[in-house]
């Protein structure tokens, strides 16, 4: 993952956010957030009270006191707006930096004549390319927009998007035909068909997601808003009914005190930070180089129960590698290795190359004359080389056995045992024969990526079941599954097997995530609750999934799950903190409201606050400043630790619940000491 480790608050972003926080004061945009909207009404009422006092009203206390309350409330709103604005600005900046690379790049558009594309090039700006247009890219060109290669093959530098410096190969047809705008062609020439309308690429969708106007609240956000609105309603009831109660008890309350009580009790902290948390979640995904098509997908990722991972490239490094040479009885090891190397002379498969690599001998050093290379065929299921009078064959044990036994030789039992042993250990045995006599066995093994076991262990602690998908036979698959520490595997997998597995798990009520790149993955990607398509994958795959991983990193899913969990946790902990704050605020404001009329209630003033005015001011000031203090937490998210749900709850309850009770007691007292100096 390539993360731009910039500080949370960059100057230009802060300036933009400051501007936005004033613009967002408009009731039209604030009404989307019912909690802060009620604060705005309270602020307006305080403004009216201030004007009322200026016209000579005596019953509401001094002008300065009321005006300060008005200002503090206004700042509460501004702080909340700032939180949202800074989150938006950061998300936009991140997306813009990705988008900038592709804007206004000259595109070499070519026009079709009938079915044939002529080489006649018109240079147009990339923004004018429409879906279906075809353009050409040559060595050194920057690809103007997302598309699919229809002709040619090229090496492409994708570092602008993925941060990975090694070039990748993209070619027409197959699963690696997709190119991304902003990346650079290093060699060769390709013809590319545009796959998205201008302004509708994934990146554009992502930018829309972080921008206020088109941002949809996710289901979980809606449910939480209902909870918070419910709390707000309760406190509206509490404050409205307090008026007749206080009158009955001959303890008149000023309007400022009413509004202060109300604003302090409603969950403004979480209300002010809620949208910032959501935006920051998507922004974190973007920083992990994952483009999400909806905020809901990020949330869902946090709930994933089952994770489908391809074996190759995810759990193991690329392909199988030769790890051992086992000569048969009575055969010299050197001779065997020589034969093995020669048999792989013309073998272009990764397995073949790895044999030469393991032996450490260049086959050309043998100086063989007139070699005849025997290609692998499905019929013989072996390959090899014929030299003068020497026939070397390499293949699966049963095919070599057939060759050996056909010519009347015996197939040694020790070799058969070795073959069985290797297969049992998850390896692939290859038997080498020379002139129809067995020389020995080569062991090929899957190399499991370092650190993958720990990642699976982490997933298990999160409650996520990992499933390995592989084309291997069940025996090999089981061995690798055990070694890598995955919980289940699908062996000899066909594309529809993935689909069926996902459906079966979903039937049991589980949420399934998978990663895929090929067109034949598309149905499964669409079926999965979270489908992450690799950016290198086909357009169909990218359309079907709900996230695109720019890094093409198959283990990215693990990060996505954590981002999703962090998002929900940040919401939950800040809600708890916000509501827990009420305890201290009650103890600050309630005595302040009634102490003049009922001196006995001094007993409730456990913080020993200076005066009723200072108590009320301290409470509202604390309520306002706690928002900017928590903005960094809202943007970064609460750290997720896979320690089991109950332990996590205990931990967060201790930090944010107990902390939420204690912190305001201290904060309000400190502010009161300062405020008392001025009153």
């Amino acid at each position, binding site marked *: 993952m390539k993360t731009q480790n910039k500080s949370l608050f960059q100057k230009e972003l802060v300036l933009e956010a400051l501007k936005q926080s004033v613009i967002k004061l408009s009731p039209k945009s604030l009404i989307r957030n019912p909690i802060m909207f009620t604060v705005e009404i309270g602020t307006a009422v305080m403004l009216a009270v201030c004007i009322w006092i200026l016209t000579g009203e005596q019953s509401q206390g001094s002008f300065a006191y009321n005006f300060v309350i008005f200002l503090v409330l206004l700042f509460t709103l501004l702080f909340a707006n700032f939180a949202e604005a800074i989150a938006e600005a950061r998300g936009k900046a991140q997306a813009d930096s990705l988008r900038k690379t592709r804007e206004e790049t000259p595109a070499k558009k070519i026009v079709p004549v009938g079915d044939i594309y002529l080489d006649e090039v018109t240079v147009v700006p990339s923004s004018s390319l429409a879906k279906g247009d075809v353009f050409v890219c040559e060595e050194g060109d920057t690809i103007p927009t997302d598309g699919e290669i229809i002709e040619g093959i090229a090496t492409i530098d994708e570092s602008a998007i993925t941060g990975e410096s090694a070039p990748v190969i993209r070619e027409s047809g197959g699963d690696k035909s997709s190119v991304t705008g902003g990346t650079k062609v290093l060699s060769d020439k390709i013809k590319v068909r545009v796959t998205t309308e201008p302004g509708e690429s994934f990146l554009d969708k992502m930018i829309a997601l972080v921008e206020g106007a088109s941002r949809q609240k996710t*289901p*979980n956000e809606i*449910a*939480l808003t*209902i*909870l918070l*609105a*419910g709390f707000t*309603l*309760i*406190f509206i*009831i*509490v404050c*409205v*009914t*307090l*008026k*007749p*109660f*206080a*009158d*009955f*008890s001959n303890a008149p309350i000023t309007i400022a005190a009413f509004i202060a009580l109300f604003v302090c009790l409603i969950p403004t902290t979480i209300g002010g930070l809620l949208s910032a948390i959501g935006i920051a979640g998507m922004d974190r995904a973007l920083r992990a180089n994952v483009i999400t098509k909806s905020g809901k997908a990020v*949330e*869902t990722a*946090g*709930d994933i*129960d089952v994770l489908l991972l391809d074996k190759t490239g995810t759990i193991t490094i690329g392909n199988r590698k030769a790890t051992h040479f086992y000569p048969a009885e009575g055969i010299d090891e050197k001779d065997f290795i020589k034969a093995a190397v020669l048999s792989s002379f013309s073998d272009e498969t990764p397995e073949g190359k790895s044999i030469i690599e393991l032996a450490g001998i260049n086959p050309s050093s043998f100086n063989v004359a007139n070699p005849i290379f025997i290609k692998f065929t499905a019929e013989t299921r072996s390959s090899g080389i014929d030299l003068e009078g020497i026939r070397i064959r390499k293949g699966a044990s049963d095919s070599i056995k057939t060759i050996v036994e056909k010519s009347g030789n015996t197939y040694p039992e020790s070799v058969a045992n070795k073959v069985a042993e290797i297969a049992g250990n998850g390896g692939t045995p290859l038997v080498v024969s020379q002139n129809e006599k067995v020389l020995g066995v080569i062991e090929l093994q899957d190399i499991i990526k370092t650190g993958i076991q720990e990642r699976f262990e982490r997933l298990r602690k*999160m*409650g*996520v*079941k990992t499933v390995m998908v592989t084309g291997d036979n069940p025996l090999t698959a089981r061995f690798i599954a055990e070694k890598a520490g995955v919980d289940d595997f699908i062996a000899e997998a066909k594309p529809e097997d993935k689909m069926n597995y996902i459906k079966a798990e979903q039937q049991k*009520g*589980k949420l399934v995530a998978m990663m895929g790149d090929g067109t034949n993955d598309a149905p499964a990607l669409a079926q999965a609750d979270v489908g992450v398509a690799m950016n290198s994958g086909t357009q169909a795959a990218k359309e079907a999934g709900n996230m695109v991983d720019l890094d093409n990193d198959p283990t990215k899913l693990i990060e996505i799950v954590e981002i*999703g*969990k962090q*998002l*929900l*946790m940040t919401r*939950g*902990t800040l809600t708890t903190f916000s509501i*827990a704050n*009420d305890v201290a605020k*009650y103890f600050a404001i*309630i005595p302040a*409201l*009634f102490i003049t009329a*009922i001196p*006995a*209630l001094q*007993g*409730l003033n456990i913080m020993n606050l200076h005066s009723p005015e200072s108590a009320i001011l301290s409470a509202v000031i604390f309520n306002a400043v706690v928002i900017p203090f928590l903005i960094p937490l809202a943007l970064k998210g609460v750290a997720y630790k896979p320690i089991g*749900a*109950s332990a*996590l*709850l*205990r931990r*967060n*309850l201790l930090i*944010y619940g107990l902390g939420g009770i204690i912190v305001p007691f201290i904060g309000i007292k400190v502010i009161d000491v300062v405020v008392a100096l001025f009153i």
Partner: protein
Amino acid sequence: MNTEILGIVLVFVLTVAFAIPLGRYIARVYNGDSTFTDGIFNPFEKLLYRFCGISPNEEMGWKQHLKILLTINFVWFLLSMFVLMCQGWLPLNPDNNPGMSADLAFNTAISFVVNCNLQHYSGETGLSYFGQLFLMFLQFVSAATGLTTAAILFNALKERTTDKLGNFYVYLIKSCTRILLPLSVITAIILVFNGTPMTFDGKQQMTTLQGETVNVSTGPVAAFTAIKHIGTNGGGFFGANSAHPLENPTYLTNMVELGAQMLVPFAMIFALGFYLNRKKLALMIFGVMTVGFLLLAIPTVIAEMNGNPALTKMGINTGMGATEGKEVRFGAAASGFWSIATTVISTGSVNSMHDSAMPLSGLMQLLAMMVNCFYGGCGVGLLNFYIFIILAVFISGLMVGRTPEFLGKKIEAREMKIAMIIALLHTLLILSGTALSTAFAEYGASTLNNPGYHGFSEILYEFTSASANNGSGMEGLGDNNPWWNITTGVVLLLSRFLPIIGPIAIAGILAAKKHVPESSGTLKTDTSTFGLMVFAVIFIIAALSFFPALALGPIAEYFSLLN
């Protein structure tokens, strides 16, 4: 240990000991398993089903359950209006008590239908025996209604996806016949042997020690008092309720009545554990409720046993505790403990005058009803607690990074909306009722005997008691007038049926959702950590929102007394 304290500890422990096997039995009853009472009740119930045209195997959805529940309750309400207003000429009226006024009948009918038993009349002069018997019938069926809703909840919490949640009539009838009736019979027998009357003979003449002749009201008191406690109803046969020497003659009957009102609410919690085979969940619920209960009961008992500091200052011996308004045969500790048991459990029967309790006790009694889910009434206590579980599950689910789920069902916006409305309702009804009564002092506050903080507490108590469907009164206000009868009547209706409809709707919606199997990432709801979370949610929603009101009532009174 002090014998007074030993007495209440013993009652509590014995009740828990009885409640566990009773819970197992209740779980079997609702699950339709065979029980040892089959032999007695099966033929009787079969006859009843055939007579009423009920097909007991037909299962109903949550909407159908609620439709029947509301209809049947409405019929009971109409019937009781008729009986109460016409009792003057109906049979079984040896004392020739007159029919009730329309507003009093409205209040009484509602209050008995909703299992509250707020009584703005005195049984001696306000009711005929026929009226008493009809109210006794309501005490059975209203308690059974509560138990039935709990049974529907149990059914909905099972781990499966369905919209079929059992048969309403079967639950209702079984609740009456197999749970309430046997327990009431046993309780009544103990009462009768300790001197509680059981007769239809009307007033009896006796000569007092001073030699005067008085007419003493009697009646079928033992039967009435038994279901009053077993069904957590609390409506007294006599005006003085369980402080009356015939309704609660001895220390032993006091303890039996105390245990009887706690028994079924306790047993229902254990029944949940047995029914769902989630004993740890039941323990968590019982634990949270018990901690809450003790936090309310212990300060009350201490306050009552310490007596009034103002009196001590005057040099008066308060060695027996605060004895004003208490029966000497029960003592300060048992009276204080009872006052919390009866408010926590929505019984509302009293054995002492709550108006005379110490301010701190008054605060605790009010809080007990404001929370209204530490044990709570027959069946409905669990329903109220369920709402808080849903809210706690939601917040704590987020805190561990998962979409919240309870017993394998995901909790989403729709359920949150319902849960929040129900959580709001109690606050709304209590505070707005009290606000109206103080704002329109000529109707409400003018009937007060006590001015000041205590007067405010009395108004607050009346609405809290109505909204909690409790039925106890702090008294001290002239409550039999149209203002109190109608306002509390409306509060009673809303606060009974909405908190039944809400949880049943949530449970029904959740039952129809896809079941998500537990994984190690699932938040366990049967742990003490989650219990703490539920407690915190209850404390913040149910207790803190009343803080300003309480500050003007019992808290102001408490601090004034200290100074």
